[in-house]
């Protein structure tokens, strides 16, 4: 049986930390806050490709669904982040990618996430708050552009250490 890699454990810890932080701090202190989970999903997907990216997104979404208070419909975040992981993984390129490309991939994944949330809200009969939705999307795009390159550098460093 394969033992979990160091990067896998690091991703899991980072994921739980961001989800807990989202509910306990950012959601209570700011009216508009970025999606803290998205950069972690985008970085993992850019590193490992579309299928593994979707798998990681699905797992990340399950953490979001299960950390209290969780999503209003169990499994909805899992499917949403799986789609984001798939989109971000499709943007994977061999070798190092320029910053602008990482920002574009982050924005595309964030847009998929926002669209999914809008559809979930409409499907459940909740009122849609377009200004809040657009604000969250903008903040998440900025966060992805800032946070994804260093996260990828950490993945790269861990992979290099594994091979030596």
């Amino acid at each position: 049986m394969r033992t979990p890699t160091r990067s896998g454990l690091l991703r899991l810890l980072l994921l739980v930390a961001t989800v807990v932080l989202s509910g306990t701090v950012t959601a209570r202190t700011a009216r508009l806050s970025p999606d803290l989970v998205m950069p972690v999903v985008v970085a993992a997907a850019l590193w490992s490709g579309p299928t593994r990216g979707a798998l990681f997104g699905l797992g990340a979404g399950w953490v979001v669904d299960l950390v209290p208070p969780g999503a209003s419909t169990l499994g909805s975040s899992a499917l949403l982040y799986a789609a984001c992981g798939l989109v971000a993984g499709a943007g994977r390129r061999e070798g190092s990618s320029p910053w602008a490309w990482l920002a574009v991939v982050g924005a595309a994944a964030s847009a998929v996430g926002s669209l999914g949330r809008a559809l979930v809200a409409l499907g459940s009969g909740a009122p849609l708050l377009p200004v809040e939705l657009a604000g969250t999307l903008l903040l998440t795009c900025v966060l992805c552009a800032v946070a994804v390159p260093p996260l990828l550098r950490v993945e790269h460093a861990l992979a290099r250490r594994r091979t030596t």
Partner: protein
Amino acid sequence: MSSPSSSSHRRLLVLLVAVTLVVLALDVAGSRAPLRVRALGGAVFGPIERLVASSREGDTVARAGAVRTATDADLRTADDAAVAGVAALRKAPETTGRRFVAARVVALGRQGAAGPERLTIDAGSRDRVRVGAGVVSADGVVGRVVSVSPWTADVLLLGAPGLQVAVRVGSAGTLGAVGPERASHPGAAGLQLSLVQLAPVSAGDIVTTLGSIGGAPFEPGLRVGTVRQLDTRAGSLVPAGTVTPSVDVARLDVVGVLLPRTRTTPRPAATGGG
């Protein structure tokens, strides 16, 4: 050609997406199985959230626990925000003559595009909190408990889809129902009010709960909000309007979970005819 590893990953992805779809369908259908999954999540992650929330406020877990064990003397000399919150909750009409468990809000959900629909409190099944219990603050109704783990409980907020509350409006006690706002009003949190009949209701009227069967989740007379505006267009089949909720969710700290009243003596029978 794809490698065996990537094709096995693809199969795993398809399998896990199928399992997720089944869980999602069960949750939408109202099955009890997803509740157990949520309770498991609460049992694992709830204590972490309690710890993070208490450290964020420069508090200790023991001090937060004092919220539930505070004596009257403590409350009179309260300089702690949480204990002062319990003092305000005890004085509120929502808790007068009612048994409740005080708790603090530890997490607020912001997953949807419609703002927060759920929150987490630091009281769970060990504190006698049960699914279906009403939750109030010193300002009025907060919501209903929908999931419970040993250490935490999740509360569906008033205004979230799936929570309709029967209400009385104004001094005449006109019957109606309050639920999520149908139209989008960016930046203005409100509730949709539907009256059952044409009645002299005006803006500023107080909206209170009608009361649930058995007193759970809501007993009669709990404050829901005030009428903000009424739709007076001719031709409306059902009079409708919007209500400004009495509780500001973003500033919630101490809340009370109402415990059900158990009747020990049968209701006396009456004889008509004077």
